[in-house]
């Protein structure tokens, strides 16, 4: 079974990379891009029966730094 973990910088935490992407989009002529936030998606291939609680523990311990990042788990 697969799980997806979406990790994003928390609201209010400056995202210089997202900001650079926003500038680049403007440079390509795409108007009206108000904000870009760049995060990451981590795909986990897990043993059947792995619980969402276990994945949450993985997020808290390693996959996200909850000082600056939030995460969202998608599981089947």
């Amino acid at each position: 079974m697969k799980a997806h973990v979406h990790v994003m910088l928390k609201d209010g935490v400056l995202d210089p990379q997202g900001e650079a992407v926003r500038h680049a989009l403007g440079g390509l002529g795409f108007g009206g891009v108000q904000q870009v936030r760049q995060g990451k998606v981590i795909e986990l291939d897990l043993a059947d029966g792995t619980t969402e609680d276990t994945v949450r523990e993985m997020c808290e311990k390693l996959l996200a730094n909850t000082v600056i990042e939030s995460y969202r788990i998608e599981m089947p």
Partner: protein
Amino acid sequence: MRAAVIVFPGSNCDRDLAVAFREAGCTVEMVWHKDTSLPEGVDIIGLPGGFSFGDYLRCGAIAANSPICTEVKAHADRGGYVVGICNGFQVLTETGLLPGALLRNGGIKYICRTVPLIVETADSVYTNGYDAGQEIEIPIAHHDGNYTATDDVVSELTDNDRIAFRYGANPNGSTADIAGILSSNRRVLGMMPHPERAADEQHGGTDGKALFASLASALTAA
């Protein structure tokens, strides 16, 4: 004084740090990240600069969860001394030994140059060889040195004189120009600039030397 320098895959300032400790009169042992114990009688642990584990996931995140870091945390919890420089600072925030986090530089670019630092407090074994308010020149070399923390954390650091160094001219967007901070017991120091790269005439500057000298004299006397 006995120092242990932790070596992670991707550390690249480990030997420079060992040389700086040795020049200050310490006995130094290199400790591999997979080791599960520290050498007997270690006074201070150095977490060196570099790109541990290729900065994969987040800078310092994988190193902070390596086997030896359990011992590093236990050493700090016992009141032991730990200094983390550059990537070592990132590891310290990831372990939770120091608050806050290091984000990508505000200007996106990797910065490698010597910058002015203000010594904010002389009240620590690391900084008592300087005067509070003294300006020194120390190299920085980082892509993710933009210190961030909540307002509460910054107030707590400020009110308790835990900001060790501030940038004279903020190069990376760090909150409150913070370049280095101390733990509440003042024994754990994390800083982005590299004092070990300014500790010998041939480095082009020696302003970092006092940090290792004061540390060695404090810990040798203890």
